[in-house]
């Protein structure tokens, strides 16, 4: 049984102004729920935060969401969560990059904003659930417990960014798009059938608060220039950079190293050291990771009792890989069956048992196959 076939609920639908959340709200209303739409104003200064109606924080987006709510025939409000978003998501994002890690702000937003600040407020105001346009499924078991599963359509699955939700949050989450085998085009066609003007609206960027997609530029503005060295695996200086925070483990482009490697092969970012503002680069093989530790685990249900074998996803849109994982003193110890490449501290590891999301944790450190690297 999926969540859309339950008794009627008082549902607060988060509406970004995009096509997915609009169709999700429409489906929830059609399923007989008492739906109220709410657009989250996440920018204190919407006009300068981002321009162009491609994301979820502009005045245009807010108006698109309002028009969609009108067509669906549900009440609509705009709630200002800009302060919370800045503190919990944007500042965290900048601080993580500054510390040499690669954060996932969407995960953080789901954990701290949509299914915390928003959900708590919704529950206090008498709502039963928060509905979003995420592609994932909440399955209710016979004993009433909830499980989070991948979307029916693997290509659209967004369960990775929801892997931070605990059972209580899942009990109040509604994902009307998750249980249909569909593609975005079909969702757009459905939006058009429903008379929703957002049917043809472009997809949003990955990071909604970086208008132009230029993460480096965004970070440079926040953190300022901090010139440092790019070194090879031996520690020899082979280039310079304008801020170690601008790099991600596994990054190949934008290194701007003048001299080619001795073997002529491309070089990748192996390590970022914020302490001495150094970026270490080397061959692709040196990126191979055999194990990792991850902190701040969050379980979408009961925490696993002992060690277990799971499939793991290491980044949004990433593939699956088999792991052994065990919780040791609150830290997740993970060993890969086959070495994996390009694992960045700060990213989340999400564990799956088949299609079921077991839980997630934030990657703290990795063990490289080629130990000389780091």
């Amino acid at each position, binding site marked *: 049984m999926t969540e859309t076939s339950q008794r009627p609920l008082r549902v607060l639908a988060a509406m970004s102004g995009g096509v997915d959340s609009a169709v999700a709200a429409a489906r929830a209303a059609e399923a007989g729920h008492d739906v*109220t739409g709410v*657009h989250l*104003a996440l920018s204190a200064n*919407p*006009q300068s935060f981002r321009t162009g109606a491609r994301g979820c924080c*502009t*005045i245009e987006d*807010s*108006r698109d969401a*309002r028009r969609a709510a009108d067509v669906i025939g549900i*009440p609509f*409000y*705009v*709630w*200002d*969560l*800009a*302060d*919370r978003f800045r503190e919990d998501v944007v500042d965290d994002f900048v601080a993580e990059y500054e510390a040499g890690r690669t954060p996932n702000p969407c995960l953080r937003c789901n954990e701290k904003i949509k299914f915390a*600040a928003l959900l*708590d*407020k919704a529950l*206090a*105001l*008498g709502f039963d659930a928060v509905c979003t346009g995420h592609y994932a499924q909440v399955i209710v078991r016979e004993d009433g417990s909830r499980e989070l599963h991948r979307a029916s359509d693997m290509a659209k699955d967004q369960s990775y960014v929801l892997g931070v939700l605990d059972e209580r949050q899942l009990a109040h989450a509604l994902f009307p798009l998750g249980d249909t085998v569909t593609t975005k085009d079909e969702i757009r066609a459905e939006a058009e059938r429903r008379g929703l003007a957002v049917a043809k609206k472009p997809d949003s960027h990955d990071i909604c608060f970086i208008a132009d997609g230029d993460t480096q530029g965004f970070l440079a503005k926040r953190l300022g220039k901090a010139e440092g060295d790019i070194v090879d695996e031996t520690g020899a200086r082979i280039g310079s950079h304008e801020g170690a925070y601008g790099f991600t483990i596994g990054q190949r482009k934008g290194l701007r190293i003048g001299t080619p490697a001795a073997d002529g092969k491309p070089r990748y970012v192996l390590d970022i050291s914020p302490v001495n503002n150094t970026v270490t680069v080397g061959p692709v093989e040196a990126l191979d990771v055999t194990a990792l530790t991850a902190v701040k685990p969050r379980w979408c249900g009961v925490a696993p009792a002992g060690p277990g074998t799971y499939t793991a996803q290491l980044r949004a849109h990433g593939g699956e890989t088999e792991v052994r994982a065990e919780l040791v003193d609150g830290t997740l110890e993970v060993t890969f069956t086959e070495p994996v490449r390009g694992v960045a501290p700060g990213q989340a590891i999400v564990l799956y048992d088949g299609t079921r999301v077991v839980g997630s944790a934030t990657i703290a450190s990795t063990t490289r196959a080629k130990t000389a690297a780091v």
Partner: protein
Amino acid sequence: MKGLYWSRRDADPARTRVLASPVEHHAVLDAVHWLGEHEGATVEYLPVDAHGRVHPDALREAVARNPDDVALATVMWANNEIGTVMPVRELADVAAEFGVPVHADAVQAFGQIPVDFAASGLAAMTVSGHKIGGPYGIGALLLGRDQTPVPVLHGGGQERHVRSGTLDVPAIASFAVAGRLAAEQREWFAREIGALRDTLVTAVRTAVPDAILGGDPAPGGRLPANAHFTFPGCEGDSLLLLLDAQGIECSTGSACTAGVAQPSHVLLATGTDPDLARGTLRFSLGHTSTRADVEAVAKAIGPAVERARAAGLT
């Protein structure tokens, strides 16, 4: 506003100072702001008291500092959010001593309290149809015969060249009817709706003892149809949603930026704490308001405030 500014400045380039109350509606505030940004105006906001009222002495002090550089003053007849009525006649008298024209936005006052342009001493006054049950999108500018504002719109020279454009006769005729009815019913409105408003205020204060009444508490100092409250510890948006769900339509009374509620500039001008200013609601009564409506609010407001407090300030 713009037209008067231009004509006064044309007559004497030294006249670039615009005196405005800080509690004006955005219809005036934004025009004044624009004059500052694009037309070299120096905008000076007049001080207001805790009820949001501009005192004649404050205007006198501001003008007397340099009477020669004042282009005009603008003070609304009554405030749209907290209902406070301004001492328009006294303000106009002070300005007249220095030959400074005063404009008053009387949109809120029209139909609720006596609004006599001829007796007011004002140079200009604006009223609007939608606030008196008339058509939307039509208003009137009352202008002293000695005023020669530069037109904002140019064209066919209609309306004494002040506002060119083909006259919207149906809207004008409807507005005239609405205006006549509003004037005829004004005393009844002030008495009956004012009494209903007083019942509402008492009921809300009984249900929520720490609710703060905004504006002038004296019956003669505020608009009869206005009740404005601050509910400490509440988000106005939460209250709005909860009351809306019960068919009670009110407003947080604050300006919207991208639909995001900001603390009201009116409350901030009266010295209200910004956090406190987030928990405001404005109830506006109209000629169709009934005792049953007030009872519905009286019943709903207590539980709504309790719930909104639980939801907290995000």
